[in-house]
Every structure is written in C-alpha cells, then in structure tokens.
C-alpha cells in the first residue's frame, strides 16, 4: 500500500492562510514586533510558538448563530477537551488530550471521490471556506450512556455535498479518518480495524442538522476533539460523528462502519439515539449529562425530532 511517504519539505512548510492571518493578528496585537520581522518572513514560527497551542486556540471569525442551537447549559470546555473517545490515540478517555498534543493538522487534505462529477483533493482550508461558519449548540450522546452539550462551529455537510455534485447513483456517503501510526499511537493496537470509517445515507447526509465541523467554543477544534475536520450528527450516537476526516467518498451501497465491523450485534449502521432500543449489554433509556449528579431520560433521536421523517416506515429495532 502506498499511503504516504514522508514529505521532504513541500506543503508542510507553506504557511496556510488562516494561520498566516492569525499570526498577522498576533503581530498587530503586539505591534512592537515590527515590520522587520514580517518582512524577514522567518522567525514567524518562533514568534507565534508554541505554535500548536496558539493554533488550537485560534478564534474563528464571523461565526453566526444558528436556530438549531439548544439553550441547555453548555458542558465546560475542560470536560469536552479531556474526556474523549478517540481510539486512534488511546482507549483511555483521558489519554487523547495529551497524546494528540503534537498531532499535525496542517497540511491536511481531504479526498472527495467515488460517484461525483469531479473527483478532487482539497486542502482543508478550502473546505472550511466553502460556507459561512455557524455555531451549533448540540446535545451529544455517547453510546456508553453519557452526554454533553457542545457549541460546535461548522456548516451543514450538504454545503459540501452540493459543491461536490454527486452522481445520481451515489446513495451513501462514506467518511474515513487519517491512518498514520506514527502520529496516532492507538492505531498500533488492533482494538478496532483501521482506518476508522463511518457512513450516512444520502438523505441523512443532506439533512441540515448533519454538521461538517472544524471548531468548537468559538475556536479551532482541539486535536483530541477531531481536528481539523469532523462530522457531528447530533441525533446519532457519538461514534457516528467521525473525527480527523481525510476522505469523503460517495458510494452506491451502504458502507461499513468501524464499530459495526467490531461488534455487529451491538452497533448498527444507523445508530440513532433511541431510548427504547437497548444496547445488548446496557440500557439506553437514560444518560448521565457530564456535570450532573442524577441521570436524565434519553430522548428519541436525542431530541432532534425533525429527523424522524427520514426513518418513517423503518423498523428501528431492526435497523438499530
């Protein structure tokens, strides 16, 4: 398999525009830095260092509010950034925050292929600029029985799909996470089949709630939360919301998803939040919202009733 060769220099050394703009802002803020440094062009990286930290916390400008947002209490940032299921880094939830610290999200390209008019490899920055960023405060329910409320930043996946222009025979969308053992130590273990893949039926993918996400809490996504690009599908269990996306493929048949491969009787393709369909090993009737003492009842489709019509006539016990 020819996945990737270590790049000698090339694109990784090219400062992406967003970062460049952030640095300019940084420089403007400190004014004293002076034009000489800018002109020299070198030393910028040093100035802005530690670059990872600055990068991860970079504000996203022009974020619009969304009518899809809930008014429920937002889960503290430190919980959402320290309690992560991201098996590419570790199966320990408290592992990814540290293990993903030096994860390289730049350069980052996303391959868009399969049944589309034009197959292409896009820089993640190009994708992010496709549409205006919105803040979507969503409930997020993990299949394990805990939940959080997160102010994500992104736009509807359908914005990208429309631009990708899929062919009529494209019935599903398949997403793939980066496979890079050197950067993602969890991929050394065979606990799941790598790379992680996920999928949506085309009408699910086109639903405006399905969010293509690149930020949260008004800032660029932290690495442990799926930077630089992830999905957020609020009416489905968290594992459907794939992180670190490098490929979006349009296909004609239902794609396999990683957890379904791992345990087909426990994790289905649809994995809609459903309090009346138990996980074979535990109940899904209630959940613990992080930060709350009592458990709260889990809502059908995680409270996003507007998606119900996507599944009318389907037996959701069978299509769990």
């Amino acid at each position, binding site marked *: 398999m020819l996945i990737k060769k270590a790049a000698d220099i090339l694109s990784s050394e090219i400062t992406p525009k967003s970062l460049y703009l952030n640095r300019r802002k940084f420089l403007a803020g400190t004014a004293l830095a002076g034009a000489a440094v800018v002109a020299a062009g070198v030393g910028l990286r040093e100035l802005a260092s530690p670059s990872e930290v600055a990068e991860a916390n970079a504000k996203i400008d022009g974020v619009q509010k969304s009518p899809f947002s809930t008014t429920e209490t937002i889960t503290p940032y430190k919980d959402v950034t320290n309690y992560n299921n991201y098996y590419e880094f570790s199966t320990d*939830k408290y592992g990814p925050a540290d293990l993903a610290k030096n994860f390289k999200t730049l350069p980052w390209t996303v391959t868009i292929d399969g049944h589309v008019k034009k197959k292409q490899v896009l820089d993640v920055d190009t994708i992010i600029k496709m549409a205006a960023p919105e803040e979507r405060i969503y409930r997020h329910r993990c299949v394990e029985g805990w939940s959080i409320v997160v102010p994500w930043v992104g736009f509807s996946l359908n914005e990208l799909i429309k631009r990708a222009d899929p062919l009529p025979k494209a019935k599903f969308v398949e997403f793939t996470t980066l496979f890079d053992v050197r950067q993602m130590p969890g991929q050394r273990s065979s606990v799941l089949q790598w790379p992680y893949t996920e999928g949506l039926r085309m009408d699910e993918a086109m639903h405006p709630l399905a969010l293509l996400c690149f930020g949260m809490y008004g800032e660029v996504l932290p690495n442990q939360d799926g930077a630089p690009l992830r999905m957020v599908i609020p009416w489905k269990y968290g594992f459907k919301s794939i992180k670190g996306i490098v490929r979006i493929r349009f296909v004609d048949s239902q794609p396999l998803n990683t957890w379904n491969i791992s345990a087909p009787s426990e994790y289905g393709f649809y994995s809609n939040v459903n309090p009346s369909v138990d996980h074979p090993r535990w109940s899904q009737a209630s959940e*613990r919202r992080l930060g709350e003492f009592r458990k709260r009842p889990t809502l059908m489709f995680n409270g996003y009733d507007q998606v119900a019509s996507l599944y009318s006539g389907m037996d959701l016990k069978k299509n769990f």
Partner: protein
Amino acid sequence: MVKWFKPLVFLACLGPLARLGWKAYAGLLGANPIEVITHSTGDWILIFLLITLAITPLRKLTGQLWLIRYRRMFGLFAFFYACLHFTTYIWLDKFFNMHEIWADVLKRRFITVGFTGFVLLIPLALTSTQGWIRRLGGKRWQLLHRLIYLSAIAGVIHYWWLVKADVSKPAQYAFVLSLLLGYRVVAWLLRRNKERKAASAMIPRTPVAEA
C-alpha cells in the same frame, strides 16, 4: 514479624479509598467522577482477590508461613471494595430504583455475573472469623471458602463483558488469575499422584507364580 506491620498493611489497604476521597474533595475525578469511582473500586476488588489468592502459592513456594495471617484481611478488603462498588451502582447509577436494578441483574449478563461474584463473597466474609472456622470445622470451612475461586472468575468475566472493545485490562487480570488457579490444579494433581503412589506402595506385592 514486627508487631506494627499488620496495622501498617491495613492502612495501606485503605489507601485506594483515601486516594479516591482526596481526589473527590479536590475535584480531581475528571469529567465523569461517578465512572471513575465505579471503575476504581472495581479494579481494587480484583486486585485484592488476586492478592488473597496469591497467599497460599507464595507461602508454599517461599516457605514464608507468616503470610497466612494476612489472607483474611486481604479477603475482607476485597469484600469491602466490593461493597463500595455495589453501593456506587445501586446508589449513584440506579438511585435505588429496585425495579431497574432487578431488570439489570436478570437481563444484562455482565451485571448478572458481577452480581453473582459479589453475592458469593458474602458468606465468605460472614464466616471469616475464628468462631466460624471452629463451628464449621476446618474441612467444611475450607470447602466453603473455595467459593472465592468462582467469585474471582465471575469478577474477571464481569470486567471482560463490560468493555467495549479493548479487553487488554481484563485480560491482564485473567492471566494472573489463571496462574493462581493453575498453581492449585497442578498442586492438586501432584498431591493425588503422590497419594496414589503411597497407596500402591502399601499394597503387598503378590508373589509371582508361586507354583
């Protein structure tokens, strides 16, 4: 052994609880404190069960006979952490909803097996006193207390069945437990062999062809 050693070990056994208490007080239990409490108490049950089961092999292999005096304490600490673990479940997870708890115990095999492991420890804790050893008689007492084998097996299975995909930690417990139980099987086989030999040695040889 020095007199103050046993109280010291006792205090050390309370260490995991003290650590949890401190972390809870200092707000260091992370995003999901109840999960941490559940998992931590669960881990310590298994650790104490394994320590308890290690006493006999260690004693036999090293000849350090005094070790036996710590076995009951370790066993009771396993039960102590099991009580904490169980309380966490019925209180912080189920909020004493008996209907739900019962449904869980019957329906969810990892809870069924974990619950079984816990219940098996109760008679052992109750009969752990000198008085009960006397009342039951050494042989019967020993037979009853072999339930700890089943309880430990149930505990490891409980852990194995609850993890989503990464079985590495339950596998570690399973490995140590199989060594400890394996030792007993081998010891039993050797003993039986010896007894047989001894028995056959006692039968007088029939004289060959005394014609």
